[in-house]
């Protein structure tokens, strides 16, 4: 997986003009380089061939149910936060073929579908996103390892980027996931712009990261550069759009199953499942066996699913969680509380996507605050 950083790896500097060399070096090593790019007025993740594909000089304005791109007055390559997509679509694809089966002499013959997994290089992974990947690692690679995820994950080269321009819905500092990315990257970049100078401070996280860096033009970083990079991060940390107190959150939500706030949020929530689609840690899926018209060939597919759908909890003809209220409660309680008991960390990384992409602007940080500020008489069935 991620090997130890080489001993004594000091930071380096890479000129903006040499970033294409980085992209080229990754492609030469067989990686499909995926990075941020603008499509349909949003910053999405897609395969890129060069720096020109990046959202150069763009930034984003985000708030509850609001997302806009706006031009910056500089040419920063990474001067924005995160868009509707996350890296999970590459590691945990929205649709995956699990197996094929064909009617045969002995009932049926099965053909597993997991072959070679593509090797991706992710360029521009934010701190919150890196934390999200590591969060999904604990889901998909613990007691049972998912071969698709594990194969793609081990092959994925991660170039992280420290945020300079958080958005209005960001709260990574509350969740301890940023704005400084890491640990867990192969390389990490901090964009430094000073007058005409446009460079990146590069930190090496692994042997393979060091090897790629060695193959592109780079120079030593001076203490002033490191201080500049630290200042970028500090400034970003002070510009969070949202915040969420987390020290008591598990106990708070475990005691709040009958809190009246759930009725309030249920009156707004459309159960549209956007939040689960954009969330970088949501992992629910469904499995479907489908047959062709002859009935001789079947395929088993895994697809993304959402706990907001009515039939997610279907049992014996009706749903356990029939109301929107119960489904919103399930999602938020899972994300912030039961996830901790399941996997040892919070499920939330503070990326703010669920706030931005909710059509009615439901804000998870505000819901937590409302629950905390209004003590509930009725706890979870206990005195």
């Amino acid at each position: 997986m991620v090997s130890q950083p080489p001993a004594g790896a000091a930071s380096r500097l890479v000129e903006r003009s040499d970033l294409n060399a980085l992209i080229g070096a990754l492609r030469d090593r067989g990686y499909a380089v995926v990075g941020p790019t603008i499509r349909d007025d949003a910053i999405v993740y897609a395969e890129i061939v060069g720096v020109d594909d990046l959202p150069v000089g763009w930034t984003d304005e985000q708030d509850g149910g609001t997302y806009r791109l706006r031009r910056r007055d500089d040419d920063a390559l990474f001067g924005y936060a995160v868009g509707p997509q996350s890296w999970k679509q590459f590691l945990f694809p929205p649709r995956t073929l699990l197996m094929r089966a064909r009617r045969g002499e002995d009932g049926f013959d099965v053909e597993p579908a997991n072959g070679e997994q593509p090797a991706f290089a992710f360029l521009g992974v934010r701190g919150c996103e890196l934390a999200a990947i590591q969060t999904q690692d604990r889901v998909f690679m613990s007691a049972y390892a998912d071969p698709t995820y594990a194969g793609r994950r081990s092959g994925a080269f991660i170039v992280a980027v420290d945020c300079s321009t958080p958005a209005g819905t960001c709260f990574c500092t509350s969740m301890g996931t940023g704005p400084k990315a890491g640990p867990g990257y192969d390389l990490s970049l901090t964009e430094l712009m000073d007058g005409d100078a446009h460079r990146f401070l590069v930190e090496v996280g692994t042997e393979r990261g060091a090897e790629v860096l060695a193959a592109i033009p780079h120079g030593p970083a001076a203490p002033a550069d490191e201080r500049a990079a630290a200042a970028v991060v500090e400034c970003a940390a002070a510009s969070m759009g949202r915040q969420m107190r987390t020290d008591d959150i598990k106990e708070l939500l475990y005691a709040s199953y009958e809190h009246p706030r759930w009725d309030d949020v249920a009156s707004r929530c459309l159960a549209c499942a956007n939040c689960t689609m954009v969330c970088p840690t949501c992992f629910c899926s469904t499995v479907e066996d489908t047959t062709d018209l002859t009935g001789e060939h079947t395929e088993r597919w895994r697809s993304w699913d959402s706990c907001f759908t009515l039939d997610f909890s279907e049992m014996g003809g009706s749903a356990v969680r029939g109301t929107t209220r119960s489904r919103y409660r399930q999602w938020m309680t899972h994300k912030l509380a039961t996830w901790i008991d399941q996997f040892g960390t919070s499920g939330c990384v503070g990326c703010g996507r669920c706030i931005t992409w909710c059509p009615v602007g439901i804000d998870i940080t505000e819901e937590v605050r409302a629950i905390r500020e209004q003590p509930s008489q009725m706890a979870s069935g206990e005195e």
Partner: protein
Amino acid sequence: MIPRRFRVAARRRELADTVTLGLEPLDGEPPQFSPGQFDMLYAFGVGEAAISFSGAGDGRVEHTVRAVGAVTRALCATRRGDVLGVRGPFGAGWDVESAEGADVVIVAGGLGLAPLRPAVQALLARRERYGRIAVIIGARSPSALLFRRDLAAWSARADVDVAVTVDAAGRDWRGDVGLVTELIPRAPFDPADTIALICGPEIMMRFAAAALLERGVSPSAIRISMERNMKCAIGHCGHCQFGPDFVCSDGPVLAFDRVAPLLTLREV
């Protein structure tokens, strides 16, 4: 997520809509399982369903299936010689061994007797390691009783107390009529030193647990078998969550003290 092929070696109709299948692997050995665990049974071209082990022996594993949907109807319609897919075993079982030295109470409602049958078999296989054993069974009617041959064999033993009740009956039934929980107050066990295993519809399990608690059994000594929507059975798809527990891997058997607060809530 890839099933192994098993042949239906034996098929026994238990009730109009319930069949016990004896399955043998086409290749390799049958799975070693713990009582209370389950397999995902695959009907080619239809889909999978989570079915508890209901017995084992002769190189086979047994699963008792009730036809309630497309998959289970297809499973119940299989004939001897047909091939099914099997994934498993999955889940946390009854952990019968942990009850050694104590009395054991088994409370089974309806089809809930199926996942408990391997537990009773495990207890009887090492009878000397356990205190008193009380098996309490509830069914809809006398004709709906499962595993009648086993019930007769267990009842015939002097070292097992078997009490059976049905919801209603005709006059040819000379046993008890009433809710299964009504057999708990008089069952022979020491509440201070008992492990209780309950399986059946969720409402029945709640009331049975209440009756056991009333007799002084500690909530941590009571184990129930939960059921929720299952797709992957390996803790990845998220469907079977019940509070913090994944029913497929933290359960299906869960200690009552752990789940009691959630059982009183609606839509969890």
